[in-house]
């Protein structure tokens, strides 16, 4: 039984692609066959975050045009053989695919992969509609900011209207010290406002930028990071495991780097 999960947010820059890359890798490490689909035609990024940009030969569009087979377009990750990427075309626009074609691709992939993660483009137009069309579940990524939460709410409404009932929330870039100082909405605040079940909390972590620079998902890093651990936990919760949410109180910035040093070499 295969699960097609769209990773979406409405607003851009809140961490959809980072989430897709890390969850894809984390799920593969848990032993599942995983494919991540970059649905951001025209502005692809997922290949970069996975460090696979130099290995992209064909894209989903080439498959649809009959110029290659689906498995020729899939980029298999050498670090983690259970993970594959279906790249988007960079030199086209979002209008070059349609919902029916996306469903076709996902149906074909479902025969071989247990998890199909679809990295949705920002916005709620054509690209969004294409990305959600084949999905049976959704992960909403938001940050504790007014515009991100508002857009997330809009997207939840659209997903519900589209018949996607299994919707889970990931709150990204939480800054525990600011929440403590009452200058940022807390996890509970956002959860209460959106009224969507919570599946993950990811603290704001500089290591996310470092991992993007390297093209190496955080969950692969030898040095354990809070964000990496959060994504690992989300993958386990997706599997159905009960995993406690990270305690944000132990994460204020001073502690943060010290703890990371402690983790170095361990685990």
């Amino acid at each position: 039984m295969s699960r097609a999960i769209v990773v979406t947010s409405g607003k851009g820059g809140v961490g959809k692609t980072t989430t897709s890359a890390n969850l894809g890798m984390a799920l593969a490490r848990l032993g599942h066959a995983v494919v991540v689909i970059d649905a951001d035609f025209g502005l692809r990024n997922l290949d970069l975050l996975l460090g696979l940009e130099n290995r992209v030969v064909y894209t989903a569009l080439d498959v649809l045009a009959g110029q290659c087979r689906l498995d020729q377009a899939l980029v298999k990750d050498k670090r983690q053989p259970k993970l594959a990427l279906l790249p988007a075309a960079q030199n086209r626009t979002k209008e070059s695919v349609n919902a029916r074609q996306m469903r076709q691709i996902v149906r074909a992939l479902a025969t071989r992969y247990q998890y199909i993660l679809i990295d949705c483009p920002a916005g709620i137009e054509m690209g969004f509609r294409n990305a959600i069309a084949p999905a049976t579940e959704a992960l909403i990524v938001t940050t504790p900011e007014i515009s991100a939460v508002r857009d997330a709410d809009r997207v939840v409404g659209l997903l519900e209207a589209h018949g996607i009932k299994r919707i889970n929330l990931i709150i990204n870039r939480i800054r525990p010290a600011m929440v403590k100082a009452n200058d940022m909405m807390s996890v509970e605040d956002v959860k209460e406002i959106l009224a969507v079940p919570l599946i993950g909390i990811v603290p704001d972590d500089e290591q996310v930028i470092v991992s993007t620079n390297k093209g190496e998902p955080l969950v692969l890093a030898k040095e354990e990071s809070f964000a990496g651990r959060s994504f690992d936990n989300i993958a386990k919760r997706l599997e159905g495991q009960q995993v406690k949410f990270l305690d944000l109180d132990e994460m204020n910035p001073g502690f943060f780097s010290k703890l990371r040093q402690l983790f170095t070499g361990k685990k």
Partner: protein
Amino acid sequence: MLSDLIDRLLNRSSPKSRNEVKRRLQQLLAHDRTTLSPKELEAIQAEILEVVSRYVELDQDGLEFALASDQRLTSLVANLPIRRIKSDDKDGAAKRVAEIPQEDASNEPVPDNMTLDLDDDEAEIFKLDLDPELGDVPASEDSTPGNSSASA
């Protein structure tokens, strides 16, 4: 390390933005989630006012219409402070007013209240007594704004 500490101390002394952002978001989402257009909302508002104004004279300055949202459910909250109950009984309105059950034993008719979220201020609103000068101003029964298409 030291600048961190200073920053945090400064943050702590500034006004807290967390409650403000929550309040703004809740208001925003209540509007976003409803499928009513501003025009429809205005029409509803105008018609409610028209009906209520047949029975009572409203304090036009204190009128409040708002959309509130909780658990992905939106509700319309109206607060219509009453200036006085109309007593001219030409159209039977006064008769209907008399039929409204009155919890209070006093002769003064108890102002009806449209609001769903009572707070302390509203008790004050109802205490507002009629200004003798304003009392002579005829109640505007047919001048509800924007109801040209909605009049029954």
